[in-house]
């Protein structure tokens, strides 16, 4: 049997009668109580698929409960997102809804199927500071340090209000934060209605690109994104330019993200064909998978150097030397501080290798 998460993916996507058999075998081997948090997040989709075959199956009520809980939470998120969209619309700030909020509308058509922790909205980089001011006036607060979008040190930030979280993006993704790299997403965005409000979503081709880019960034969420990919391609496959997607990944140096992704499980293995990522691409695909917080020794200095090369070198906004960038990125206080920290990191790496 495949890993529980992969098996759950099949329980959610296989023809219902086959899925029911798989589910019976899975829970006989791994009781539902033993599923980890990430496996549990697939259960609403499993319930929706299984109930097409039977009203009664092992742990039906528990799965129904998780679907119901997901529905309630997603409705709260959708209402909160609606208020944010109203706020942006009242100031004519364009918005593209991303991830769960968009997927529920575009291809799941069921607010209880995909558990989401938060919601994600992209605004144009040049309007992001204004959007943040509006959000702060509306009671939203940065979860962590306040960021200046113009510096593009991150692609977005998490804001909180009334116990809910919201990721405001000013770039689509951390891996590609130059304004010209986002232009195509805005140009080809498609209309969508969220809670009665007209707004925008990525085009089907860009939905596929984005999912492939982020699916392997978070290994613990990989199977969940595979589920999104399966639903997206089943429902909107005819609108997707499958040739363009690997090209876009290559242009952003993240094509090697596909190599560890079990796309064969959902019949998309052809997307990997013909890709030949360079060493630079492999490094960037790996290093950019983490939010750089100085704790990932393996990528200490690697991520900042590549990031500087891709996003700041030779640019006028912001016009930073590599030293200035490093000072900000690593929050270095002096040359001595930098040397000390670098030596400490190296010592930790040597210790890790030695062990």
């Amino acid at each position: 049997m495949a890993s529980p998460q992969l098996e759950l993916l099949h329980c959610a996507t296989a023809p219902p009668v086959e899925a029911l058999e798989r589910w019976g075998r899975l829970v006989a081997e791994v009781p539902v109580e033993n599923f980890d948090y990430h496996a549990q997040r697939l259960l609403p989709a499993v319930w929706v698929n299984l109930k097409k075959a039977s009203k009664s199956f092992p742990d039906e009520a528990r799965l129904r409960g998780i679907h119901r809980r997901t529905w309630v939470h997603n409705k709260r998120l959708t209402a909160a997102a609606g208020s944010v969209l109203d706020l942006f619309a009242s100031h004519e700030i364009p918005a593209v809804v991303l991830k769960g909020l968009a997927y529920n509308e575009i291809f799941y058509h069921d607010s209880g199927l995909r558990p989401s922790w938060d919601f994600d909205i992209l605004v144009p980089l040049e309007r992001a500071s204004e959007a943040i001011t509006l959000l702060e006036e509306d009671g939203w607060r940065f979860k962590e340090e306040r960021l200046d979008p113009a510096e593009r040190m991150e692609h977005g930030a998490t804001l909180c209000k009334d116990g809910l979280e919201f990721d405001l993006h000013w770039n689509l993704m951390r891996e590609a934060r130059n304004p010209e790299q986002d232009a195509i997403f805005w140009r080809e965005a498609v209309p969508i209605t969220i809670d009665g409000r007209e707004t925008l979503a990525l085009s089907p081709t860009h939905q596929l690109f984005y999912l492939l880019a982020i699916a392997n960034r978070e290994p613990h969420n990989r199977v969940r994104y595979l589920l999104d990919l399966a639903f997206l391609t089943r429902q909107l496959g005819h609108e997707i330019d499958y040739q363009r997607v690997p090209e876009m990944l290559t242009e952003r140096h993240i094509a090697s993200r596909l190599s560890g992704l079990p796309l064969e499980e959902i019949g998309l293995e052809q997307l990997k064909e013909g890709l030949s990522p360079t060493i630079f691409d492999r490094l960037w695909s790996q290093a950019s998978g983490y939010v750089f917080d100085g704790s990932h020794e393996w990528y200490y200095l690697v991520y900042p150097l590549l990031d500087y090369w891709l996003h700041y070198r030779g640019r006028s906004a912001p016009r930073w030397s590599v030293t200035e960038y490093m000072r900000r990125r690593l929050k270095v206080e002096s040359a001595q501080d930098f040397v000390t920290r670098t030596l400490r990191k190296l010592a930790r790496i040597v210790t890790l290798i030695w062990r």
Partner: protein
Amino acid sequence: MRYQPRDKDIVWEVSEGEVLLIDLSRGIYYSARQGTAQLVHDLMHGHSSEEIATRWAERFPSGADPKAHLSTVLRLFTSDGLVTERGQSPAHPGPILELESNDFTAVERYDDMTEIFEMDPIHDGDLEHGWPVHN
């Protein structure tokens, strides 16, 4: 008398014969099952309480009279401000839910959303009804 959800903060849906209903502004969650789900569904779709009771009597001539139960549901919904009276009849009331059960169960009401979200649906959920019914 006809009713309608108070405003857009009242969100509801039918799932597997159960009506799920949330008052987003007050953080209250309601669940109606079996015959009660049908009453609530039809009520929210703008059918009058008289129409619902008549349909019920035709479908289940020897069954329980829904009027008393409908009054109980309406008392709860109006006191919670979940529904308001419709000024006029809708031109086309929404669909009715196919009547399958004449068992009336009380509307379940959970007024602490934080508390039910802290509950683990796998380990703490009721084995028959699931979250948010505690085992």
